């Protein structure tokens, strides 16, 4: 942070996302919000909140329970000069929209020789831990990270939830933001005004020399908890928050202590083990 750092307040993760949406909507008339129940209801996790009253139903569009169609409209809007942010009610329902995300959004720039940009942003509440059962608790981000043409981010703090959303909007390529549902009420410092958290840059959350945890999403917080337990036993753990899983910041993730001490490198993410 430089000397001109803006004022920082405590916000919840959901409030931080809403602030980013609000800033983007106010600054750029091509930004539109789409998703199921994001209008008057304010979103399944109350992220969009009052945006429909501020910007009207033409820019905060309640879409039918038809993810393939909704995502298709979002991709088409992105191709024709808009910056749509499409919210899946649960990331699990992105399975219904795979054609538009994987075969269209990810491919169109390459298929058309670089003549088009697809600046669409998908927001996907993800992860387990809320007792929402098997069809509402998955971590599918690895699927999307596998697809050339897509960028995939997983903010773990209110600060990064805002910064990565604003960076995603500024990015000319499709970006998927996986938001862990247990994060929405988490509070933390968030600077006022516009700032971007760079896509593709990992963040070192704790410095340590004996062992390194490279983690994503909620496992970053679990790794930090584990590091506290280790510290009581004299083991200092480094915790690296990968933050973006495509492109991946291999340089930071591979960092090793320079003094040659024996070192373990552990990885943690909430995906199923196979192919995760």
């Amino acid at each position, binding site marked *: 942070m430089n000397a001109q750092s803006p004022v920082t307040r405590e916000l919840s993760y959901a409030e931080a996302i809403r602030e980013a949406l609000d800033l983007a909507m106010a600054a750029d008339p091509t930004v539109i919000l789409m998703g199921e129940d994001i209008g*008057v209801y304010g979103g399944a996790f109350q992220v969009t909140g009052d945006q429909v009253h501020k910007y009207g139903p033409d820019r905060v569009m309640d879409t039918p329970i038809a993810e393939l169609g909704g995502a298709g409209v979002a991709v088409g809007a992105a191709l024709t000069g808009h910056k749509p942010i499409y919210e899946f009610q649960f990331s699990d329902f992105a399975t219904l929209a795979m054609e538009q995300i994987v075969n269209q959004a990810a491919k169109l*720039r*390459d298929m*058309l*020789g*670089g003549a088009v*940009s697809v600046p669409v942003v998908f927001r996907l509440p993800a992860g387990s831990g809320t007792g929402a059962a098997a069809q509402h608790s998955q971590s599918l981000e690895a699927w999307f990270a596998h697809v*050339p*043409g897509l*960028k995939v981010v997983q903010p773990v703090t209110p600060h990064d939830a805002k910064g990565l959303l604003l960076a995603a909007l500024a*990015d*000319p*390529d499709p970006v998927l933001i996986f938001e862990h549902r247990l994060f929405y009420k988490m509070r933390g410092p968030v600077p006022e005004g516009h700032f971007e958290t760079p896509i*593709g840059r990992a963040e070192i959350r704790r410095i340590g020399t004996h062992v390194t945890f490279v983690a994503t999403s909620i496992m970053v917080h679990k790794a930090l908890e584990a590091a506290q337990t280790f510290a009581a036993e004299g083991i200092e753990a480094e915790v690296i928050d990968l933050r973006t899983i*495509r*492109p*991946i910041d*291999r340089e930071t993730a591979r960092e090793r202590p320079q003094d040659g001490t024996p070192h373990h490198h552990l990885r943690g993410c909430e995906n199923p083990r196979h192919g995760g």
Partner: protein
Amino acid sequence: MPLTCARAVLYGKADMVPLDRPVAEVAALAKRDLRPGDTLDQIGEYAYRAWIMTTEDARAAGAHPCGLLTGATVTAPIPKGALITSTRRGHGHCIAKGADVSRMFAEFFGKETGYCRGRGGHGPTLIESVTYRWRGHSKSDRNRYRTQEEIAGWMARDPIARLTATLIEHGVLTGAEAATIEAEATAEITAAIETARSAPDPDPVEATRDVYAWPIP
């Protein structure tokens, strides 16, 4: 859902069966006191909720279909819980929603300038052009799903050949001119293929050039 799909596809059983006459109608009740001049919001919002009635009861009561209420203007007070009614006359609603009266009358008289081009409310005009591909879907397609007779029948109806014949018949085109057009088209395609063949191959590093706006690791 999977059970419904299986039942329909494997056992030919419908999940819901339409009857041969209207049986029920979805009307609406006011959620709150509605005053003249109020504009009704959408289904699921704050002004009204759906209410199912038999068709006879709905007609007798003048119940207004729930699905047509969005954006409607209230003309008389409706207390909370009361049925929302209307005259159910389509032209009245059209005028209230700002329709052009002369186009409405043109429709009524079956004129081309009517709202439905005088076709009696059947909506837009659909043009279906049925065509047929001579060859398989790909080189590996062995056409096992169609007969040689079927293919030959369609080839005889080929629109290009028929247009050429019609133009020659009417003296617009001569047989020699038609042959020249075909030869020119063939030459153009042949030249394009040759040009493409002799063009340089792309550099392998170009393979990922347009995957993202800028290169990523």
